[in-house]
């Protein structure tokens, strides 16, 4: 690289600097605090005065009788959310793309996007009312149409995880749809014209042009989602769960919240946080390698 180039690029490098500093100060520097996961951290003694306990906190959390069920719930709910969170918005995006009336398309897009802006605190209140077995509109509708017995969606262990997945997808699929719609606009229209000349119908066009055209974005979204597999949605579940569905609905984040945060057991909380970060890092690396091998997709 010549000297001249460097001089030209210097302002550009300077413009990166604030962002870089921000990441260094707020994302990297605090990582030093991870050492308290290996200490019996006592605030009055500080990070350097507290004594070392090795992997004690990891063993403690692992040894608790509930931990296995909680990890299983987390993976189950999270996996279902990832799958449904891919399938539903992709389908919606493809269907919306076929709509010719622009006004109608925009209207649907806006309506399904709206719940994304509501917080779970508000939505949980609304959902508890809608899903109530005695007065909820859903159960009354089901009873009226099919004569079904009221279902206690939020109080029944077997229903709870599915309700979480459904409501999460309902809240977020509008957002995903917009991303996939954006991906659709980047497909070269000439491909469709060529396909029409070759005699391909709508379905064949979708199968051979639309879906392959969206593939890079799908892979990117999937890669990002897999890194989050241990985050099954704290805000959502914390606002809707209750002791009678702990067995199937309690996830890592809500569990650790009750276990460690409320009583300020900082070391335990840090240990679980570190554990989650390591798993996420491994998974995100793995999915990136897979994406790179099989879809020839590169983020970097």
């Amino acid at each position, binding site marked *: 690289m010549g000297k001249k180039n460097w001089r030209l690029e210097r302002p550009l490098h300077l413009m990166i600097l604030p962002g870089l500093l921000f990441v260094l100060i707020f994302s990297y520097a*605090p990582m030093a605090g991870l050492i308290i996961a290996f200490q019996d951290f006592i605030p009055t003694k500080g990070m350097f005065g507290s004594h070392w306990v090795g992997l004690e906190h990891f063993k403690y959390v692992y040894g608790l009788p509930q931990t296995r069920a909680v990890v299983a719930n987390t993976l189950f709910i999270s996996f279902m959310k990832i799958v449904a969170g891919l399938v539903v918005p992709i389908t919606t995006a493809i269907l919306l793309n076929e709509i010719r009336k622009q006004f109608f398309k925009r209207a649907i897009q806006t309506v399904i996007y709206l719940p994304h802006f509501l917080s779970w605190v508000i939505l949980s209140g609304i959902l508890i009312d809608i899903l109530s077995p005695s007065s909820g509109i859903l159960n009354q509708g089901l009873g009226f149409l099919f004569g079904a017995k009221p279902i206690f969606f939020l109080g029944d262990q077997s229903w709870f995880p599915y309700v979480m997945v459904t409501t999460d997808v309902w809240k977020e699929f509008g957002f995903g749809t917009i991303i996939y719609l954006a991906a659709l606009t980047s497909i070269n229209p000439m491909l469709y014209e060529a396909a029409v000349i070759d005699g391909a119908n709508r379905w064949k066009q979708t199968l051979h042009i639309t879906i392959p055209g969206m593939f890079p974005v799908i892979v990117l979204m999937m890669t990002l989602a897999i890194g989050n597999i241990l985050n099954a949605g704290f805000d959502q579940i914390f606002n809707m769960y209750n002791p009678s569905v*702990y067995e199937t609905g309690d996830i890592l984040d809500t569990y650790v919240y009750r276990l460690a945060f409320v009583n300020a057991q900082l070391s335990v909380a*840090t240990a679980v946080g570190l554990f*989650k970060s390591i798993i996420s890092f491994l998974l995100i690396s793995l999915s990136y390698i897979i994406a790179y091998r099989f879809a020839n997709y590169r983020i970097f």
Partner: protein
Amino acid sequence: MRKKPVKTLTVGILTTLLLASACSNGNNGSNGNTGNTGNTGSKSDTPAVSGNAGADANANKPASGMEEGPFGKYDPPITMTTVRSLPDVEEYRKGESLDDNLWTKDFSSILGINVVNKWKVNNKQYNNKITVSMISGDMPDFYQVDSKQLQQIVDAGQAADLTEIYEKYASDVTKQSFEEFGGIKLQGATFDGKLMALPLNGGMPGAAQMIWIRADWLKNLGLEPPKTMDDVNKIALAFTKDDPDQNGKNDTIGLNLMKDLFGGWAGIDGYLNGYHAYAFNPANASGTELIIRKDADGKPILGDTLPEVKTALGHLRDLYAAGAINKEFSVLDPSKAGDLATTSKVGMSYGEFWVGTWPINNMKKEDPKVDWKPYPIVSSDDQPVHPTGRGDVPTSFIVVNKNSKHPEAAMKILNYFHEKVSGPNKDEAYHQVKEGDKNYQVFGLSPIVGPGFSNTNQTDNDLIQDALKTGDESKLTPSAMVYYKGIKEYQAGNMEMWFWNALFGPGGAYSITNDYDKNSPPVTSEYLGQPTLSMVSKGPILRDLEIKVFTEIINGTRPLDDFDTAFVAEWNKQGGQDILKEIAESGRLK
């Protein structure tokens, strides 16, 4: 999108740790002068400090430049640093702030103490900031902490021993305040026989529950208020089945419950009391606030594990099966359970005195026929009934830094506060001031808000009852006057003031708790100390266990006998034994 609360929180905490020392160092110099500037003018007529204190104060002046006695003045003035927690809504009179107000002016002119706030943060961040300050070691001369922090500070040897200072400098009012109700406040702040902090609350056990019932529904069905637990259960069933609101629809339930099970609104605490059971394990304390009782040998035992609890749960289970408890209680939080009351779907709920102020406070205004009334809890048999009492052990303290040069100055500030707000010479100008249409709680500006006397509302209630009977308002205290006027306005037809009547009116909530205190004193936890190590680490899991089993026993998913096998046995096994052992070893049983 999906968030990562644990990670974010951890990162947040750690970031604060790193940045904190930088922040707190910067503040030392800037505020130094605020105390002095207030001395001039306006306060020339500062009320004289009460008699005996001043008398021996002038007599001897030690070399250090300090007069002896509870109100002795420092000359030259000294500076005491502290830190402050800000309320969510800050409202000050013009020219006043936490740094400069009537208290700080008096402290510097009368006591010779300039109080300097090293930092001020929102109350939600206060605890974190204190933790951070502990780590950085940059502590002020005195500061407010909770029970857990106090334990840590005492363990770390950072608190000054106040035992002698209390003997020497506490004013009469302060002594009376600390020593009321068997000196429970002092006990709570005493470690190994030494007074390590100034307690800011505690005293009279509060939080006793009563039964809030729709009296208009009772009348509709021709029922009497309950005398026994059988009556309570019968009323619950009648409210469910006999259409108490007379709208021709089967749309009501008898007894309100919510998912936390324990709490001051729609909890089971008061119902359990009827069967002489004393259980308590609220959601927000995460298994660290327990009712510890003593068995026949004087050993500690958890109230929640006793057989009386099982009996009471059995009756709740029957009520649930009969449809008299809301089917969905296990998913409803207190405010959702409150909606059931405000939409007239439920006619009875156990709760504390404050139920009158929330959630049912507006119902009378919207429909004058609605008539919620508090009734005392009742017994299941011929044994007298006692409510569960809490809040007698202090949970908030002022710690004096052991490096402070004038540890007694904090005691003097507290003395002055008590003198103006709680003592016989109290002055409403230091308590609550009305300017324009705003009420300013000026007592809160003081850096130390002393506990005063914990039964103020109770004594006020007695005064109000007398005044209501005789019409003589002269004996009412300023606070009782406010309540009394509220009741009078309600009686004149202003339904907005209904809650005053529910709390302080004839047969109101405070009359009921006063009766409890006279005839059936509350049962409180026998444990005085802070949450033990096992309580902190195992409490949350044990609470999960308890709430889950209790919920499932009530809603019928489990047999009643699971109380012994799935709860009591498991509780002991999963760490309960450790908790009881630690409590027994702490030597802090009453």
